[in-house]
């Protein structure tokens, strides 16, 4: 777990007229994409990365929903950060996250019933996604709303690209398709044998492990 984000607000206070996309702010968005990725480096949100990544389509909808929930809960908590009593802050964070998740689910049910049916069980799981609570506790509680939006976007997309990558390989080798498009049949490989392991959670562990391996050999990150 990194804690460097906690120290940043002090610098921000010293520089009152910071540009809209200053170097520090760019790093808020870009860090979680690679060097400080919520899944592969902080090892948060693993549960949902295993559960929803069998196919690309639900994974994509889940990514959009998670980005939405992280960004908005970050803003709301950041706006409220000076009035939240610290003894009940976790409950307050949870209430905000749960409200947003319920709203997402209700809106999906009303206007995109097909999506709602695909995601039914998954949307509720966003509440328990450690990344959301983790960002609220580690960042939004101590930073201004605009920075919190950037941080939410960074973490959300950091989460999204990893689970989409995992889902891509799992669907490709597990079901022989990408977004339900039968890739191997399309290129004339009708006899391609799909791998049942990929449809299981074990497949997600393996692919996640390989992604972490490749990533760390490039960034040189070592856990202490």
């Amino acid at each position: 777990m990194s804690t460097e984000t906690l120290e940043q607000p002090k610098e921000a206070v010293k520089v009152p007229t910071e540009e809209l996309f200053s170097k520090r702010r760019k790093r808020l968005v870009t860090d979680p994409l690679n060097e400080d990725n919520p899944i592969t480096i902080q090892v948060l949100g693993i549960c949902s990365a295993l559960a929803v990544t069998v196919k690309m389509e639900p994974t994509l909808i889940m990514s959009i929903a998670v980005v939405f929930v992280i960004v908005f809960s970050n803003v709301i908590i950041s706006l409220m950060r000076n009035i939240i009593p610290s003894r009940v802050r976790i409950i307050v964070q949870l209430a905000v996250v749960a409200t947003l998740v319920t709203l997402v689910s209700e809106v999906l049910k009303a206007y995109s019933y097909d999506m709602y049916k695909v995601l039914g069980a998954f949307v509720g799981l966003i509440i328990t996604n450690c990344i959301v609570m983790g960002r609220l506790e580690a960042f939004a509680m101590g930073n201004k709303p605009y920075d919190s939006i950037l941080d939410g976007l960074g973490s959300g997309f950091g989460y999204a690209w990893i689970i989409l990558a995992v889902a891509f390989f799992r669907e490709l080798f597990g079901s022989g398709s990408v977004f339900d498009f039968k890739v191997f049949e399309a290129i004339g490989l009708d006899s391609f044998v799909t791998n049942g392991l990929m449809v299981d959670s074990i497949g997600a562990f393996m692919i996640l492990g390989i992604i972490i391996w490749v990533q760390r050999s490039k960034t040189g990150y070592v856990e202490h």
Partner: protein
Amino acid sequence: MRQSNTYVLLFTAALTVVVGGLLSLASQGLAPAQKKSVELDTKSQILSSVMDREKLSTMTREEVLDVYDKSITSLVVDINGDVVEKDEKGKAIVAEEVDILKNYKKDPAERMYPVFKYSKDASSGSVDAYILPLYGAGLWDKIWGFVALEDDLNTIAGASFDHKAETPGLGQRIATAEIQNRFVGKKIFDESGSLVSVTMLKGEGNDGLSSHEVDGMSGATLTARGLNDMLENYLNSYQSYFKKVKSTGVASL
């Protein structure tokens, strides 16, 4: 001040009111749209058991409802195959509004069984398919669907299944056209006229399927088992209705 008990209590109370109010507002405000979505979903699911799915998926909301109104007539029967027109309170029963889940929880003898009759050409008055709702338990949660029988009340014309929470990529496949098309043309009665239903086998790629068997889904044997039970239970319950239709002719029922 921010740490005092009074502040904490007031803060959480205010939060509860705001959040609760927001959610009930959203729930109230979205309810009509949700009801419409559910209605459209039910009707397109009923139609998808007899119609070309690709054509159905390109149709707009209004077109689906229009086709439904033109080609489907519905009625509700009880376990003895008698038409039920009014409930205990004397209110007229609409087949589309019969809650299959609520009825599923009752004893089979007390359930209401909707029948949706499909005619390609409404003016001819002939019935091309009988569509029956199904309800049961999959591996993780409920599964449901519709099975359409041709006018001989034996051959399956089509089926559509759906589920609440079957395993993605495995049991979830019951909701795909690939699996549902396997049921087309299968027979539910054997030569002697007794009900045998249609069974989904274990494993995938089975050879020599009889007219009462369909190929299974690998990795989803328990979902298939739930599907088989569901199909058999409901076909069983509709048996008296089938007999009545066969003996009295289509027009009266």
